[in-house]
């Protein structure tokens, strides 16, 4: 061997470099948001942008003072957890069945709700839920948000289920497992990373979706994100408060993501089959 080999050390260095580049691009705006939340409102739009400033928690204080931030947050949590759970509950079996049978129309059907502009649903849903007296209820919000979470769960899990070696399912059948059992005992543990991804995505989408809450909730069940808009308004864009709200709003998904990280470990199907 005459040419110097590319060693593992070099590969590691290259990876690190890419990581740093990606980090800067991805994180700078986020950092800007967090920093802005610590500035007095007017300074957010100051020019040139200030980097050194006296950080203040005043925005956060104002947030909790002027709005029932906590109760909005609880609303959001209830709706998001509810719809994510519902999405997982309906989506996991559906994704499994679609992957098993290779009949994909149920997956496409559930996605149909995502294909239409959200505004299309506002009026009919309002009429529909009003008919059954559920405007303002958590149920209405959870159901409507599940329309968003369900297809995400199904579609994210589809390739994961497809990736499990078929003969593992066959072994389970021979062992006497019904299809449903195979799902819970064999397939589900094997797509843990897929479920983690699906949960994060479903959670984030539900958490950040404001359109449905706009018409289906009322003052009491209003979600955090719908309330966050209130910081933008004529004569009063409260930048500091908005950024503080944004920071706080982004926190729960972030925490969730950090929590389910450990499910994102690799190679669960390792050693299952040879071939």
């Amino acid at each position: 061997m005459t040419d110097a080999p590319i060693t593992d050390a070099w590969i590691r260095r290259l990876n690190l470099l890419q990581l740093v580049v990606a980090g800067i691009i991805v994180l700078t705006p986020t950092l800007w948001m967090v920093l802005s939340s610590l500035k007095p409102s007017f300074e957010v739009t100051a020019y040139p942008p200030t980097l050194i400033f006296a950080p203040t928690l005043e925005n956060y204080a104002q947030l909790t003072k002027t709005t029932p931030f906590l109760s909005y947050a609880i609303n959001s949590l209830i709706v998001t957890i509810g719809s994510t759970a519902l999405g997982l509950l309906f989506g996991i079996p559906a994704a499994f069945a679609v992957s098993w049978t290779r009949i994909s129309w149920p997956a496409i059907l559930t996605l149909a709700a995502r294909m239409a502009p959200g505004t299309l649903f506002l009026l009919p849903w309002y009429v529909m839920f009003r008919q059954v007296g559920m405007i303002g209820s958590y149920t209405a919000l959870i159901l409507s948000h599940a329309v968003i979470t369900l297809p995400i769960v199904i579609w994210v899990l589809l390739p994961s289920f497809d990736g499990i070696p078929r003969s593992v399912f066959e072994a389970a059948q021979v062992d006497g497992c019904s299809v449903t059992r195979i799902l819970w005992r064999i397939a589900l543990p094997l797509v843990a990373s897929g479920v983690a991804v699906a949960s994060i995505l479903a959670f984030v989408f539900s958490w950040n979706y404001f359109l449905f809450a706009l018409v289906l909730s009322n003052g009491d069940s209003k979600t955090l994100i719908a309330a966050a808009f209130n910081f933008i308004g004529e004569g009063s864009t409260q930048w500091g408060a908005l950024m503080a709200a944004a920071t706080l709003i982004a926190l729960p998904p972030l925490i969730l993501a950090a929590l389910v990280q450990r499910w994102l470990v690799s190679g669960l199907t390792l050693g299952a089959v040879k071939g």
Partner: protein
Amino acid sequence: MSKAAATFAEDRQRLELAALSAPAVIFTVAMIAFPVVYTVWLGLHSFSSTGKQSFVGLANYSRLLADAEFWHGLWVTIALYVLSLVLQLVLGVWLALVLFHAKRLPGIVRSLFISPFMMPPVVAGMMWLVILDPSLGAANYILQSLGLPPSEWLASPVWVIPTVALIDTWQWTPYVALIVLGGLQSLPPSVYEAAQIDGASAFKTFQRITLPLLLPTIVTATILRSVDLLRFFDIIYITTQGGPGNASNTLNIYGFRVGFEFFNIGYASALMLTLTAIVFGAVLAFNRLRGAVAW
């Protein structure tokens, strides 16, 4: 077991499989059947300014065909869609690979890497509006500090689409990356050992092994991104409201404005149904592709 019993058992498995997808299917149908019928009905009516509605048949649709704003919106939608999708897929796969190889990265840092899409789109839009402000924003400040010419960003009819695409890419690339990351985790590791033995360089391994194996996942990400990108709304709504002029007036923005700013529910319904049909077509096409790239 008699013959009947045998088929019963077989049916039971089919029944079981049907039962697994039933909740999702029934739920979806229950939730969207009425809205779709309702919207179709609305689309066949005209709501005059006096609020009185009258049946107009397909008039809304023929109006649509003759509406230059619709065709322009379609063009803007597609341009934005293609540009954003390509950027996000390419960068998303790259980011996923970077994160995948950074196995020792603490979980919390890794989640920070995917944080942009956790930011509410409204906030992201507001934030970028400030950052990209031609006179006040940090973006031009940085460009000028580096001795580069400032840009008008969102204010230029030429640059508004690329700029919006960039914002969207910043926000949604991590989303694609997360999906791809999930796919990467389930790739058979032994195949990589085989590739090493075959002498594949890092690039070749990516090109010939990782990428083809990831295609089903990438197509999934494409489908999920397509349904959002073709209905591009949030960021434009916050930043340009379809401007400057109508340079960023996507179909969804246009439909929304017709319905909720100009209060023409009938025409808006026709617009949105048309948009839905476009998205549906794209999804069907990609679903085909998904079957083709399965391994």
